[in-house]
């Protein structure tokens, strides 16, 4: 689709087009309009003002024209005594097209406020919705800069074209010469292949402690034979002589069964390579539950296997049965560790409480050690009272361990109970609120190493002026070891305050201080400030002061340009004495 206009603008930030006095072709019509708006990401096309569609002797006019150039359907709207709507293109099809919020927000001024935008008289949009401009001018932060004869305007950060690309060549004093290159090949719905090469040359640096150079090659290819059968090949190589490769074949048997077979060769550094043959299948039998099993065999007689069955009964009861077996070589010794483990979990959840029982078994066949561990968990779901002002919850877990190791037989048990009570903010005045949280925990075990823990947090918030508020937190935590009559333990306290300043959308900041009441000592202070500068530029700073060390620990300064599909950041970090420029896709 070619757009010709007296003025066309493309925002790289937002992938949007705005045009004036535009002509284009649609479904064998020559279309002209005063204005056009296109959102490339959502494939929304909207022409408006003095719309004229011409085809041989036929001339149709209207005020608005929403259209889909791929499906060749459009909706022409005229505002007269009533609203008249006419279908254009395939008459039989329903027209789901309608104006959306994106079009309302798309305007010439929005495009002109973009970090990067292009203007020209001729744009071309191809079937993949890539946008090309001819004789275009680039505007960088509103300033006219370079002109281009032909330019792929939509060359986004995540887009790839078939072929070789040199992504990066860079030199730093710490890493040396760096280069990143890739080869991409895609045949729609058939083949998808990406090979990446990372190379670092360190020999150009003086006194570099590591290897003189390093190369990594990573390759991944997927071949789709049809919708239910695909083949994959991956390979990774590192110049330190570490490499692996894997071939897999995946088959879907309808919606219920998925099977995969694979062969993996892995060559670690200075060790013998391993070849694994694998098979795994997942069966989704709806009401009968989900079954999955996987098995891997290594040609040096190593084995990994697992099985699981999961189902839900009567909507609230969940059942999970799982089992695994592994036989793996221990280093270079020729011995194998053999471990059989399994578990059963049955849980029930209702509006008021949830109950879960577990049984876990681990049998180390090599070390002749058997651990069985039943567990019982019972929790009362948070319940509210005093009209939702208070909320409480209780949770209990009981664990029993039974360990057999040869002749030795050992068992122990433990129980942990947690109680939590919290409030919603209680407004004592219009701009003054308080809320608190209390937690108590009792841990009991067979060996009498019992603990009692408690914590209390109170949060007070006071609005001072419009956009200015002060918050205070007090937190006390205590953990006591209780054995017979002996009680010992620790208590920690923390008092902190935060001043928040948010008088307008452009200014946002906070300043916090923390104090240790137990030692009567100031600890740390943090300050954070964000100021919106102009044209989506933002200044942001973060400062941390340590009262104990009596020094500024860190200052981070950011200048950020938010630009639709990416962010440009200039960062200075005092801790690492680094200045960083980042282009971050969003």
């Amino acid at each position: 689709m070619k757009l010709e206009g007296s003025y066309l603008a493309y925002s790289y930030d937002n992938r949007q087009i705005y045009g004036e006095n535009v002509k284009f072709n649609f479904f064998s019509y020559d279309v002209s309009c005063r204005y056009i708006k296109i959102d490339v990401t959502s494939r929304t096309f909207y022409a408006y003002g003095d719309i004229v569609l011409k085809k041989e002797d036929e001339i149709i006019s209207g005020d608005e024209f929403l259209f889909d150039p791929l499906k060749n359907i459009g909706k022409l709207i005229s505002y007269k005594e009533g609203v008249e709507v006419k279908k254009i293109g395939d008459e039989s099809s329903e027209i789901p097209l309608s104006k959306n919020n994106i079009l309302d927000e798309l305007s010439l001024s929005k495009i002109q406020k973009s970090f990067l935008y292009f203007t020209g008289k001729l744009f071309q949009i191809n079937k993949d919705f890539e946008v090309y401009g001819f004789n275009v001018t680039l505007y960088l932060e509103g300033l006219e800069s370079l002109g281009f004869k032909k330019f792929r305007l939509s060359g986004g950060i995540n887009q790839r074209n078939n072929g070789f690309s040199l992504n990066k060549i860079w030199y730093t004093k710490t890493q040396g010469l760096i280069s990143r290159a890739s080869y991409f090949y895609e045949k729609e719905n058939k083949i998808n292949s990406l090979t990446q090469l990372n190379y670092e040359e360190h020999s150009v640096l003086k006194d570099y402690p590591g290897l003189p150079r390093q190369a990594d090659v990573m390759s991944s290819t997927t071949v789709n034979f049809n919708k239910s059968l695909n083949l994959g090949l991956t390979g990774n190589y590192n110049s330190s002589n570490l490499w692996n490769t894997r071939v897999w074949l995946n088959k879907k048997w309808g919606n219920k069964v998925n099977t995969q077979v694979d062969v993996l060769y892995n060559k670690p550094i200075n060790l013998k390579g391993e070849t694994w043959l694998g098979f795994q299948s997942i069966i989704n039998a709806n009401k009968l539950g989900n079954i999955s099993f996987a098995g891997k065999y290594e040609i040096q007689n190593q084995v990994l296997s697992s099985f699981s069955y999961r189902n839900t009964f009567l909507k609230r009861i969940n059942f999970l049965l799982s089992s695994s077996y592994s036989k793996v070589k221990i280093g270079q010794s020729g011995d194998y560790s053999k471990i059989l483990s399994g578990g059963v979990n049955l849980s029930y959840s209702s509006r008021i409480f949830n109950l879960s029982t577990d049984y876990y078994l681990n049998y180390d066949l090599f070390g002749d050690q058997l651990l069985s561990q039943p567990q019982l968990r019972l929790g009362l779901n948070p319940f509210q009272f005093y009209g939702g002002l208070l909320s409480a919850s209780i949770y209990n877990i009981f664990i029993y361990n039974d360990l057999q190791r040869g002749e030795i037989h050992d068992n122990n048990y433990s129980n942990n109970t947690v109680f939590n009570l919290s409030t919603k903010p209680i407004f004592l005045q219009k701009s003054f609120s308080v809320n608190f949280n209390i937690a108590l925990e009792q841990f009991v075990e067979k060996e009498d190493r019992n603990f009692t823990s408690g914590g209390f947090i109170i949060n007070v918030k006071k609005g001072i002026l419009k956009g200015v508020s002060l918050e205070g937190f007090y937190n006390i935590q205590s953990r006591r070891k209780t054995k017979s009559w002996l009680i010992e333990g620790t208590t920690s306290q923390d008092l902190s305050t935060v001043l928040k300043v948010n008088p307008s959308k452009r200014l946002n900041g906070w300043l916090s201080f923390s104090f240790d009441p137990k030692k009567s000592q100031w600890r740390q202070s943090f300050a954070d400030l964000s100021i919106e500068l102009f044209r989506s530029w933002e200044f942001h700073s973060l400062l941390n002061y340590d009262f104990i060390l009596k020094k500024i620990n860190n200052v981070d300064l950011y200048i950020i340009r938010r630009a639709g599909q990416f962010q440009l950041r200039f960062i200075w970090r005092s801790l690492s004495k680094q200045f960083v420029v980042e282009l971050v896709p969003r």
Partner: protein
Amino acid sequence: MKKNIIIVILFVLNTFLGSCITFKSDPLVFPDNQVEFIHLCKGMDDSGELLEPVDIQSEFSSKDEHINCFIKLKDVSIKIHLRWKWYSPDNKMVRDTGDVIINQEEKYLGVVTAYDMLQLDTEDKNEGQWTVVVFMNDKFIESKTFIIKKGSRFNI
């Protein structure tokens, strides 16, 4: 080694620059769209030098007494005719302001704001999707759709 780095950089620059960059492109006709924005709102702030829309929204209640369609134009130096047409959910025109003349003296005005108000009869059944269309000098410039929902005038 440094020589090699320079050669590589020159090669890359040549690949990008040699193929497509020009330093002069065709001059464009300056864009003529003077519409800064059009908003639907419940209220109007007249405390400043210019009117500002308050409570901008696209959903209203059938108990609301009126809806404003607010327009902000920039760089106006000639006399212009603005016109609002309001269409009910059954696509019939229920209000046409006719031409409203702005800047009759033809002075240069950096910003112009104007609005039209649709009075709703709260006894009528107004629920559904409405449309308001704004014309400038007899030419369509923008349409806005909004929903009127059955409900209370007061937010609970």
